[in-house]
C-alpha cells in the first residue's frame, strides 16, 4: 500500500504522488516515513528529501519547513524545495561565490548580513552537492507527471 506524498514550496506544488517511502531531514535527524506511520508533526532542516516508488527515486533539495504525517498522507510544507533535476547549477555556483566573497570580507558574526550569507552559502552548497551526487546516477530531469 503506497502513501500519498505532497511537497509544496511557498510558491508552487513541487511534487505529488503515491510513493513507498519518504525520507526527510527533520530537526531531530533523518526520518523515514512508510505507509501507516503514526501522526507526526516535525520541523525540517536544510537537507535532502528522498521519495521512492518501486525502483524509481526522486531527490529534492529542501531549505527547511515542516512535515506533517497522517497514516496515508505526507505533507511537506517547505520554505523552498526543488527537484535535483531542476537545480540551476550555474546559479547555485554564483550564489556560493557571492556568499563566500561577502563572508570573506568578515562581517561581524550574528549580524543580519552574516547570518543571511551563511544561510545562502549552506543552501548553495547543498544544491551543488545534491546535483553532483544524483545527476551522475542518471536521475530523471523532472519528477514524473509534473509539468514545468
Amino acid at each position: 500500500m503506497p502513501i500519498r506524498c505532497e511537497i509544496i514550496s511557498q510558491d508552487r506544488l513541487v511534487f505529488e504522488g503515491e510513493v513507498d517511502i519518504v525520507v526527510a531531514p527533520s530537526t531531530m535527524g533523518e526520518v523515514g516515513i512508510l505507509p501507516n506511520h503514526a501522526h507526526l508533526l516535525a520541523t525540517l532542516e536544510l537537507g535532502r528529501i528522498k521519495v521512492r516508488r518501486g525502483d524509481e527515486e526522486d531527490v529534492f533539495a529542501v531549505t527547511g519547513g515542516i512535515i506533517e504525517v497522517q497514516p496515508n498522507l505526507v505533507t511537506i510544507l517547505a520554505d523552498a524545495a526543488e527537484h535535483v533535476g531542476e537545480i540551476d547549477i550555474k546559479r547555485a555556483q554564483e550564489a556560493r561565490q557571492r556568499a563566500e566573497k561577502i563572508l570573506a570580507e568578515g562581517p561581524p558574526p550574528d549580524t543580519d548580513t552574516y547570518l543571511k550569507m551563511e544561510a545562502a552559502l549552506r543552501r548553495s552548497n547543498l544544491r551543488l552537492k545534491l546535483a553532483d551526487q544524483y545527476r551522475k546516477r542518471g536521475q530523471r530531469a523532472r519528477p514524473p507527471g509534473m509539468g514545468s
Partner: protein
Amino acid sequence: MANAREVEQRIKSVKNIAQVTRALQAVSASKVKKTIQVLERTRPYSTKAWRVLQHIANQPQSEGLHPLLEQPPVVENVIVVLISGDRGLAGAYYSNIMRFLQVKFDEHPAGIRYITVGSKGRDILVRLGKDILAEFSNLPADPSYVDVSAIGRLAVEEFLDHNIDEVYLVYTDFINMIAQTPVIKKLLPLTKEGEERVSDFEEERNFSTEYIYEPGQEEILDNIIPRFTALQVFHAILESLASEHAARMVAMKNATDNATDLAGSLQLEYNKARQQAITNELLDIAGGAEALEQSL
C-alpha cells in the same frame, strides 16, 4: 426635438467616457491576470497549510494543547478582519462584501472590532460608526507575504493577550472572472468549525491518535500556527485583489457597452434633428418663394 448641436456635444462626451472605461477595462484585465498568476502559485501552499492547521485542531485532545487552539467559554469580543480595496469603480464588489458583513455580524451579540485592509471598507465602517482597531490601506499592487504578515500577527497578538475571544476573516473568494463570492473564515481560535470550504473530510475519520511532535510540541505549534494564520490573511488578500480587479473589469466592460449603445442612439437622434432642421429650412424657403410669387 433636441437641438442638433446639443446632441452632437453629448455624443462627444459619451464617446470620451467609453474611451476611458475601455482603458480601465484593459488595465483591470491585465491586473487580474497577474494576480491570478500569483494566486495560483501560492494557493497550494496556503491550502495545504490550512489543512495542516485543521488536522491539528481536529485532534481528539486539542484542548490545552496550545493557547491558539483554546476556545474561550464566553465570546465577548470579536475581531473581524475585513479585506476590501482602495479604489472604486468596481461594480458591486464593495456592496457585496459589505452586505455580507452586515448579514453575518449585525446581529452578533459580542462586541465587534474591525481590522480593515483597504480604505474603501474602512470608510464605510467609519460612516456606520463601527469600532476600528487597526487599518491597513494602500497596499502595494502586488503585495508579498512580508508586506501583509503584520496583519495576521496583530490578530494573533490580540488573541494571545486575551483582548479578544475570536477572530474572523471576511474576504471575497475569487472563483472565476464573473463570479466572486464573499466568504467568512474563522481564524482564531483554531477549531473544527473553522473550515467553510468543506474538504478532506474523509481523512478526518482516521483520527484516533495524537501527533508525535519533533522537536517539541510547543516549539512547533508556536512556530507554525501564527505563521500559517498570517498566511491565510495573505491568501485572502490575494483572493480579494483578484476579485476586485475582475469585478472592475466587468463593471468597466458594462460601462463601455452602455456608452457605446448610448452613443448609437444619440447618433440616431442627431441625424433626426439634423434632417428636421433641413426640412424646416426648405419649408421656409419654399414658403418664402410662394409668398413672393403671389405678391407679384
